C-alpha cells in the first residue's frame, strides 16, 4: 500500500539571505523521499503560515541565523495557533543560543537543530515524529 509522502515547508524568515542551510536541508529531505516546498528568502511569519496552510504540510522547517528568532518564532507560533494549525511540527535550524532553547520548545517548537547537525538526524527526527502522529 503506498504511504502518503511527508510534506515539508522549508522557510527562510527575516532579512537574512544566508540560505546554504535551508537549501541543503530541503534537498536532503527530498532525497529522503519527502515532498519539500522551499519558500525562498525573506518570508514574514504571515507568509509562512499561509504557505503552510495552502501546501497542507506536516512539517515547517525554519532556518534562522541572524539572531531574530526570539521575534520571529513567537509570531509564527501564535499565527499557527490562531489558524488551527498547531498540529504542524515546527523545526528550527540555525544559530540559536542554548539559553533561548527552553522558551522556544515551550512555545511548541518541536526541535532546534544547531550548527553541525547531520542531515540524517533531521530526517530521522521527522520520520519518527510523523510516524508517531499518524
Amino acid at each position, binding site marked *: 500500500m503506498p504511504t502518503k509522502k511527508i510534506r515539508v515547508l522549508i522557510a527562510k524568515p527575516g532579512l537574512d539571505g544566508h540560505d546554504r542551510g535551508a537549501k541543503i536541508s530541503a534537498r536532503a529531505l527530498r532525497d529522503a523521499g519527502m515532498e519539500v516546498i522551499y519558500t525562498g528568502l525573506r518570508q514574514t511569519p504571515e507568509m509562512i503560515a499561509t504557505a503552510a496552510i495552502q501546501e497542507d504540510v506536516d512539517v515547517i522547517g525554519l532556518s534562522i541565523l541572524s539572531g531574530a528568532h526570539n521575534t520571529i518564532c513567537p509570531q509564527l507560533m501564535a499565527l499557527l495557533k490562531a489558524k488551527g494549525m498547531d498540529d504542524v511540527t515546527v523545526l528550527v535550524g540555525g544559530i540559536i543560543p542554548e539559553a533561548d532553547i527552553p522558551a522556544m520548545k515551550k512555545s511548541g517548537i518541536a526541535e532546534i537543530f544547531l550548527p*553541525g547537525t547531520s542531515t540524517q538526524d533531521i530526517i530521522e527526527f521527522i520520520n519518527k515524529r510523523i510516524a508517531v502522529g499518524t
Partner: protein
Amino acid sequence: MTEKSKTTIAPPEKSASPRQPSAQEKSWQANTLKPTLEKTPERRAEFTTISGHPIRRLYTEADLPNWSPEKDLGQPGEPPYTRGIHSTMHRGRLWTMRQFAGFGTAEDTNARFRYLLAQGQTGLSTAFDLPTLMGYDSDHPLSEGEVGKCGVAISSLADMEVLFDNIPLANVTTSMTINSPAAIIWAMYLAVAEQQGADWKKLSGTLQNDILKEYIAQKEYIYPPEPSMRLVIDTFEFGVKNTPKFNPISISGYHIREAGSTAIQELAFTLRDGLEYVEWGMRRGMDVDAFVPQLSFFFNAHNDFFEEIAKYRAARRIWHKAMVERYGSKNPRSWALRFHTQTAGCSLTAQQPYNNVVRTAIQALAAVLGGTQSLHTNSLDEAWALPTEFAATLALRTQQIIAHETGVANTVDPLGGSYFVETLTNEVERGAWDYIHKIDAMGGMVPAIERSYPQREIAEASYRYQMEVDRKEKIVVGVNDYVTKENQLEILQIDETVAHRQAARLKKLRADRSRAEVDRCLHALRTAARGTENLMPFIYGTVKAYATLGEICEAMRDVFGTYEEVAIT
C-alpha cells in the same frame, strides 16, 4: 568592447602526454614505494582537498613539464605576480590587520572601534546590521528583531557621525561591508570626512559594493541587476574623480565560499565578477587604466592550507593575464590584484569552540603565505554570535603572533618553486579559466546569474560537501568525530533596547530636519534615477539633508523596482 578583446586566453597548458617520471623517481616507485604499499596501504584510496580536488602522493619535476620560472613565476612585484604584487611584500610592510566589527548602535560600535585601534589594529572594518544592508530604517516593520544584531544599525548621517566620532578618517583606513545601499553609506562616510575637515583625495579605505556576489551567494540585493550595476559604476566614476586612494569596490569571493563553493568556484566566479565590472566601466566610457587600479578583491581563507595558497597565487596570475590580453591595459597598477582575506566563518564549529582559534590561525597563515594585503581573523565564538571583546582580542593577537613571532613574513613567497604548490597553482588556475570561459559563452556574469548558473554550481558543491561530512568521509573535529559535550560559551547578546534607542533617535531626526529640503533632494534623486546621470552627487545631497537610508532606498525602489530570485534547491 571589441570582438578581439573577447578572444579566449589560453590557460596554462595541460600536458597532452602522460606524466613522465624521471629514472630516479621510477626506481623509487619500484624499490621503495611498492614494498611499502604492499606492507602498509595508505590511509585512503584517494586523497582530495576540501574542495574535492585530487591530490597526488608526491609532486616532482615531472608534474611541471612545461613550467617556466621566468614565465609562470616571475619576480615579486612584476608580472605575472605569482609571487606577490610588491617586491618586498611583508618585509616592507606587514598586511593591514583589519578586524570586521559592528553591533548594536553607533555608540556601541564606536567604542569597539576605539578599543581595537588601541590594541594595535591598523585599519577599521564596519559590519552593518541586516536592516541597513537591506535598505530599511531601524524602525521599519521588517526590521523588527534584526536591529543591531548582525552589525551596527545605521539609518542616517546622524548615526554615521556617531560611528566615526573621534576617529580621524584622514588617518585610519576604513572598510565598509555594504552592498546594495553602498553608494548611500559611502556618501554618509564622505559627509563625515568633510565635517572632520579631511581631504577626500587622501581618504583611504574600501567599500564592498559588490552586488554580483549578492545575487550569486549572500542574497542581500534590493534592485534588479541592471540598475544595481549602474550604481556600482557610478561609484567608480565618482571615485576616480574625487577619491583616488579609496577602493570603491571589494570584489568578493568570501561569501561565495561561505555559501559552499569550492576553491576553484570561489576564484572563478569572483574574477569573472571582476571582469564584468571592468566591462561595464569601459562601456560607460572610462579608460580601463583610469579605474581598474582602484578595484580591490576579497577572498576566503578556508581550511585546506595549500589549496588556499594556490588560489591566491592563481588569482594574481589570472587577473594580470585578463587585464593585459583581454582589455589591453597598459598600466601595471591595473595588473596587480590586491586583496583582503577573511578566515572562513563557515569552518567555525559551535562545538568545542576553542578549536576555532587553531583553525583560524592556520587559515590566517595560508592568507599570509599567499600574499594578502589585509586580513580579518574570526573569533572563536562566531558560530554562536558576534564576538565578545575577549574573543575579538584573541583573534587580533593571532595575527600579531603570525606577523612577529613565526618568521613567515621575513621572506617573499616562501613556497614559490615547491613542486606541489606550483602544480596546484596551475591546476586551480586552469579550473578557474574553464569556468570563466563558460560564463563568457553565456554572455557574461549578469546573464549567467539570471539563469542561476553560479548559484546552482555552488548549491551542488555545498550539498556534496555536506554529504561527505554526514558520511564521515570528511572529518570535522568536534562535530562528526572526537565529539565531547561542552558547556555553552559566554556570548555577546544584543537586546531589543538597541531597536528602541534607534527608534527614538530616528523620531528626533525626523522632527529636527527640514522636511522640505529632504523632499526636494529625494525628488531630485528620483528624477536623476529615471535618466542616465551619475547618481552619486544626488545621493550625497539626500544624505546631507539627513534623509534616512530607508527613504533614499525607497526613492530608488520607486524607479528601479526590486529583485526576486528564482529559488533553487
